[in-house]
């Protein structure tokens, strides 16, 4: 199984790649359209800022959108999840607009960034949440969160505000936390995604 990981450049891809390889994937990390063509599934990681990541993705953006709208599963992680929306308060670029809605800053009533372990709640049945119970802890590092304007929320988390920590439609998913840094729960979510890819 070939997984394309968009090389958004800045930040830590190493642990994600290690986790994917351990789960048996062949991983293609690049900004190459050819790699996207070959992939069975796509992961959009993301550390950095909304604008800088979209700038890096410029060359492959259209290709990515075509690929996933034609049915290839995609998992957006953290910023990569936010990129799937239309816009963000963090920047001025237009998002990939695969999900409807925008990304806004966490409220000032809580410490920002939201760094640490928090729980998944109100989990809806979905291939991505198979075997995951309400109250499971996952690891978050973010200052912004998506506000979808369509019914795509799969799980929620509370941090000053309820936000969709997992969302998805068809075989396109996004998670606000870092599954590669969330212990057994995170690995289960990654392998759930890979199961979707295999189907």
């Amino acid at each position, binding site marked *: 199984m070939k997984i394309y990981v968009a090389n958004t450049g*800045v*930040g*830590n891809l*190493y*642990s994600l790649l*290690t*986790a994917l390889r351990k789960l048996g994937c062949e991983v293609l990390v690049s900004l190459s359209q050819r790699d996207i063509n070959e992939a069975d599934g796509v992961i959009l990681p993301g*550390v*950095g*800022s909304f604008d800088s990541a979209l700038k890096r993705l410029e060359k492959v953006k259209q290709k990515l959108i075509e690929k996933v709208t034609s049915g290839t599963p995609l998992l957006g992680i953290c910023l990569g999840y936010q990129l799937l929306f239309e816009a963000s308060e963090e920047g001025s670029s237009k998002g990939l607009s695969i999900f409807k809605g925008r990304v806004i800053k966490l409220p000032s009533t809580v*410490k920002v*960034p*939201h*760094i*640490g*372990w*928090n*729980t998944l709640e109100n989990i809806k049945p979905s291939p991505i949440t198979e075997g995951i119970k309400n109250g499971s*802890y996952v*690891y978050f*590092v*973010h*200052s912004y969160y998506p506000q979808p304007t369509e019914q795509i929320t799969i799980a929620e988390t*509370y*941090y000053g505000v309820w936000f969709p920590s997992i969302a998805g439609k068809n075989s396109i998913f996004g998670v606000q936390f*870092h599954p*590669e*840094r*969330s*212990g*057994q729960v*995170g*690995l289960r979510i990654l392998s759930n995604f890979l199961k979707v890819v295999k189907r």
Partner: protein
Amino acid sequence: MPLAKRIIPCLDVDKGRVVKGIRFKSLRNVGDPVELGIYYSSEGADELVFLDISASFEGRTTMIDLARRVAENITIPFTVGGGIRSIEDARKLLMNGADKISINTLAVKKPETIRKLALEFGSQCVVVAIDAKRNYTLNSKAKIFIDENGRPFWFEVYIYGGRVPTGIDAIWWARKVEELGAGEILLTSIDRDGTGLGYDLTLIKGVVETVNIPVIASGGAGKPEHILEAFKVGADAALAASIFHYGRYRIREIKEFLRKAGVRVRL
């Protein structure tokens, strides 16, 4: 509902081995950092910190290989610190799997580095370590505290692994590093480090009340009650070494104790 409080075992590394200093001196070897990391991760640690204790002092390069091996073997976040002298050093660690880097001496000597690191990698991976020690020679610019015996003192920042005083007020410095873009403060009491007498709660409270970023309490944990005290005065995470390394308490046991005391922890 507050965020889960974190328990962070700290692994002090010297020449590739884990050691724990008693007040930063007389080291005693307790094992392989990667193996110990895997063990703690399976025991329920929320994060790990690997500190190269010799690097800053002896000018040795940092722990890139270690970062890589740890990243390959654990699935919880970890921080690497000690001896990071430049943005380039930090980048290498982050690219090799470290989730966060911790800087101390570099931050004091070149504060702008904090801002540069935050801009390039994001605040979330920039931890500024502050090593503080009570100083009873009063400094009019520092925030003054009163100790258990009614004597006034202030907290002075130390660099180079706790060896060199800087004359800087730790409370002022904490506010400053937040302004510059630090994502977290790793706050160590040199007075308490390695003593097992409990964290310096005055220090933690002083910093927690000053900044809005998460504060990791460090230095002095000897029993679960100490960790509870640190959380009660507002620490977001508790770092400890000896109480785990020597098997005095297991992480799970401490977390169960905390949960019974009403603290939200990941179990």
